[in-house]
């Protein structure tokens, strides 16, 4: 009882802290935009698009090219020297955002762990527990990227995702601690669901990046890369990172579905019964298979592939929320 209470306190706090982190990152972007406008906005723009254009065809091009430096991420930090006070503000907001994200992450991890202690089992027996676990994976992946590659530009979308995820969990999906129904008493409970949570987290990050890719690409094509968009790497690089996440998620999702089928044989006596959840897992799988094929097909790379990735994410979310709450099936574990 005590653990459950503290777990709830930690999770609700994490929502608030993630939301604050999101505001900090939004302020960071707003401040950066001001600096850009106040500073040398014109030459900056020209400069950016020139570099973008040089960088753009670097993957498929067989023709000669000069050795390209890797695109510089923190590029505008250098440009901000004209107004040190403003650039200081940008940096301050950015750091505040990261610090808040770390606090939110720790709270969220603590919430999940105490939930596990309260329930005396792995904390993914229902929709609420699945969501808080997946959020930990999403933010964890972001923090690792931040540490390894300094991808602070991801701060805004990730904290948004985390605030919305945990926010939905504590308000809409919340259920009190309870033991599991007999169908869930299985070792596959651990394997199947943790694989689903990790691949779901990766699908979400990949999907957010595909959205960012589309926005950035459009701005690049129109020559209107400003504000937050300027802080993003070039669209080509975003596409690459999105691909890495999705390429990681796809085999794991395949495994999730297979593990689910094996478990279904033990629990329900059949490997595959076209239960709504199974059907949508397959639909999601097929859409991401489309994405991978599209990415290696001429004429489908880039924008079209990104759109497919976003459709895939929509299908994942529908499978998670729509199927759990609207359609009755064997996977009705939401408990709401």
């Amino acid at each position: 009882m005590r653990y459950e209470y503290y777990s709830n306190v930690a999770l609700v706090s994490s929502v608030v802290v993630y939301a604050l982190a999101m505001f900090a990152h939004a302020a960071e972007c707003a401040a950066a935009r001001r600096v850009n406008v106040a500073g040398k906005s014109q030459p900056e723009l020209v400069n950016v698009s020139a570099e973008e254009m040089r960088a753009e065809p670097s993957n498929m091009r067989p023709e000669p090219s000069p050795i390209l430096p890797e695109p510089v991420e923190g590029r505008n930090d250098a440009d901000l020297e004209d107004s040190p006070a403003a650039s200081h503000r940008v940096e301050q907001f950015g750091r505040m955002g990261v610090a808040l994200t770390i606090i939110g992450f720790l709270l969220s991890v603590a919430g999940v762990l105490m939930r596990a202690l309260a329930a005396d089992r792995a904390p993914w027996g229902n929709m609420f527990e699945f969501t808080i676990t997946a959020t930990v994976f999403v933010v964890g992946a972001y923090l690792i990227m931040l540490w390894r590659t300094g991808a602070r530009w991801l701060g805004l979308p990730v904290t948004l995702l985390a605030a919305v995820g945990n926010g939905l969990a504590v308000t809409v999906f919340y259920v009190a601690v309870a033991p599991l129904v007999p169908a869930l008493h299985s070792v596959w409970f651990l394997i199947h669901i943790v694989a689903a949570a990790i691949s779901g987290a990766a699908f979400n990050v990949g999907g957010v990046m595909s959205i960012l890719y589309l926005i950035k690409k459009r701005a690049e094509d129109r020559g209107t890369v400003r504000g937050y968009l300027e802080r993003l790497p070039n669209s080509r690089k975003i596409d690459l990172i999105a691909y890495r996440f999705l390429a990681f998620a796809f085999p794991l999702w395949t495994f999730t579905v297979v593990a689910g089928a094996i478990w279904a044989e033990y629990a329900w006596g059949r490997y595959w019964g076209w239960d709504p959840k199974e059907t949508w897992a397959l639909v999601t799988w097929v859409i991401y298979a489309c994405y991978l094929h599209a990415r290696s097909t001429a004429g489908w790379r880039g924008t079209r592939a990104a759109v497919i990735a976003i459709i895939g994410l929509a299908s994942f979310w529908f499978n998670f929320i729509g199927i759990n709450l609207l359609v009755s099936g064997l996977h009705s574990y939401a408990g709401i």
Partner: protein
Amino acid sequence: MTAIKTRESAAESRGPTPRVELPRLGWPGGLRYLWTQLTSMRTALILLFALALAAIPGSLVPQRRVSPVRVSDFINEHPTLGPIYDKIGLFDVYSSPWFSAIYLLLFVSLIGCIVPRVGVYAKALRARPPKTPRNLTRLPAYARAEISDSDHEVLDRAAVALRRGHYRVDVYSDSVAAERGYLREAGNLVFHISLVFVLIGIAIGVLFGFRGTSVVIVGQGFSNNLTQYDDFSAGARFTEADLAPFSVTLKNFDVRFETGPVQRGAARLFRANVEVTDGPGAPPRQEVLEVNKPLQIDGTTVHLIGHGYAPKVTVKDAEGNVAFSGPVVMLPQDSNFTSLGAIKAPDARPQRLAFEAYFFPTAVLNDQGPQSIFPDALNPALFTNVWYGPPKVETGKPENVYSLDTTGLSQLKQSDGQPVRIALTVGDGVNLPDGQGSIQLDGWVRWVKLQIGDTPGVLISLIALGFAVAGLCLSLFVRPRRVWIRVRDGEAGHRVLEAGGLDRADARAGLTDDVAELAAELSRRPEKVSAT
């Protein structure tokens, strides 16, 4: 559709020159054309999308295979839409011709894609890395460093370093060419071939497998022959001789439900103790059957997939003779196990008797009538009405044991014309009006629903899926790369080493760093050696 479109646009693009004699394709050409279209990546993409789309209605419209009751409810509720849905197979999406057409086309397209690629890959297996290009500076990654050792030493060192990095290496007089990542294509092929085997495994299961269910009351048994199944379905190549001659006796069945405030009434434990006899004359063995722990008996799998209540009832007829006595299996209607069934006493004389009955494991009476408020049997009660009629000739025609067909029967009424309603708790007995007989609730017992089945070929599918995931990982995570090292004259009489690299799959970072590091390492090494 797409095929036609491409053909048209191809014709249009030749527009400017008027009246070009297009070569006639003829039958073989036309077929080849269709084949090329079918195996193209674009068609595969379209088919994949079509598969995803086609799978969706089955999750939103009720399906016969999952719940025939909900299908008939749907048809009753939608008198116009229902029959249309039925006609286009929306109630049996996953066995409908259009769904089958999509996945069969997809697999034909898949095979058409694999076969030529296996040939290409077989050649690539023995292929050597491409010769060193003339101008390494044109490659995406390029680095150079001055060297002090002889060309020969540097190139040897390069070959050793690259081989250690799992490159396939060719050494030339002034350069080294290396390539790695051949496993990517292998993984890709393994994945796609595995998918074909998954389908083969499923097909074997469909052809040779069988599955059926049987309701077994505690204390009774099941022996594996067709007459004992309540429902049974089998593949085209299944024969009755394939049924293993085992039998199972249900000793007892332990059920527990959540009694706490959270999720009250949710199932917490199902455990059946059973006695298994592998065949006639074999010694019986004790086994425990639980959800998630099916029994394997001689290649057949026995699952516990449902349970319910069977009230024990004794019916006496007007002459005072026992017309029926025993447990009556009733079907649960909701999560609190409100159970519905029919008690039939066809041997009652002079009139046969029948009862439509509701069994409530934890009964309460309120404004809406009797209700069950908990799934466990805490306050069991039986509510019935009574039907009677002249004895029926035994026709041997099977009838539904769970529901009462009231043709030829009249409902027993009280003197005021209201139908007789009887409420019984355990141990209660009631005499029917007009001396028609009596009914008594002796107790209750649980029953379980066993699913008995075998799906051969599933091991093939499972192994193939293992290979598929492994192949998928190889094809996504192996990054083919080509690296070339050359030594040549640099400025001021120095010899320099050039390194160039090319990634053949995107999503790999660090090519530039790796090449620079390699160049530095190859040029630096001798100093370290001489220093020691």
